[in-house]
C-alpha cells in the first residue's frame, strides 16, 4: 500500500512505458497517417516524461540545479514540433497525389 501511495520515480517510469507502448501500437496498427503521426507524438511525450522524472531523481542526488533532463525535454519538444510540421507537409503532398490518407495504399514501389 505504501508503494502505491508514495509516488516515486518508478511510478512515472511505468506511466511513461505504458504511453510508449500505446504509441507503438498506434504506429504499427493504424492505417490513417494522421493517427500514426499522433501516435508518434505520444511516443515522444512518453520519452519526455521519463526524462523529466529522471531529472528529478538526479536533482535529489546532485543538487537542485542539475536540470539536464528538463533541458533535454525542452529540446525534444522543439524537435517534435519541427518533425510534426514536416510530417504534415509530407501528408498534404501525398494526399494531393493519391487522394487517400491510408499508409498501406502508398505502395507504388512494391514489386
Amino acid at each position, binding site marked *: 500500500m505504501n508503494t502505491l501511495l508514495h509516488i516515486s*520515480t518508478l511510478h512515472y517510469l511505468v506511466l511513461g512505458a505504458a504511453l510508449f507502448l500505446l504509441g507503438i501500437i498506434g504506429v504499427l496498427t493504424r492505417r490513417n497517417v494522421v493517427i500514426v503521426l499522433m501516435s508518434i507524438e505520444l511516443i515522444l511525450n512518453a520519452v519526455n516524461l521519463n526524462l523529466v522524472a529522471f531529472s528529478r531523481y538526479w536533482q535529489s542526488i546532485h543538487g537542485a540545479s542539475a536540470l539536464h533532463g528538463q533541458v533535454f525535454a525542452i529540446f525534444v519538444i522543439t524537435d517534435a514540433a519541427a518533425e510534426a510540421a514536416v510530417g504534415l507537409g509530407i501528408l498534404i*503532398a501525398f494526399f494531393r497525389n493519391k487522394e487517400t490518407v491510408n499508409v498501406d495504399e502508398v505502395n507504388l514501389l512494391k514489386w
Partner: protein
Amino acid sequence: MNPPVATAFFFYLLAATMIIGGILVITRKNAVHSALALITALLAQAALYLMLYAPFVAGVQIILYAGGIMVLFLFVIMLISIERNMKERQFNKQWLVGIVAAAALGALFVTVYTKTSRGVSLFIEGRMSYGESQNTQMIANLLFDRRAGMYMFAFEIASLLLLVAIIGAVVMAKKRI
C-alpha cells in the same frame, strides 16, 4: 514521513487521464476525436510536469505542444477531407504482429523495472528541497551561462533545425514548387 495523499490522488487521476487519452487516440475512427483526446493527454502531462517540479517544461508543453502542434494537426485534418476514410477499414492487415511486438516490448519493460540493479532503488527520499521558485533561472543558467552552461551549441542547432523544418514544410505543401 507520511507522504501527502493528495499527491497520490492527483498522480493517479492524471495518469488515468493520460492512459485513457492514449487509448482513445489509437482507437478512434474520427481523426478529430483522436486529436482532442491527444490534447487532453498533453494537458494532463503538463500537469504531471508541474507535479515533478518542472514548471518551465510544463509551460513549454502547453504553449508548444497543446497550443501549437495540435492546432497544426487540427488544421491539416480539416484541410484533407477524411469523411471517406471514416468508412474504410481502420486497422491494417498486420495488427496482430503489431500487438505481439508491443507485448514483447512491454514484457521487456516489466523485466527491467522489477529487477533493481545492485540494490539501488529508484525511490526519491523525502528530504529534498522542493525548489520551484528558481526553476526558470536555473534552466537559463544551464542553457546560456558563460561558465556553467553547456547547451548553448545544442540551442543554436535547434534553431537551425527549426529553420530547416519551416522551409521543408513550406516546400512540401506548395502546389507548384
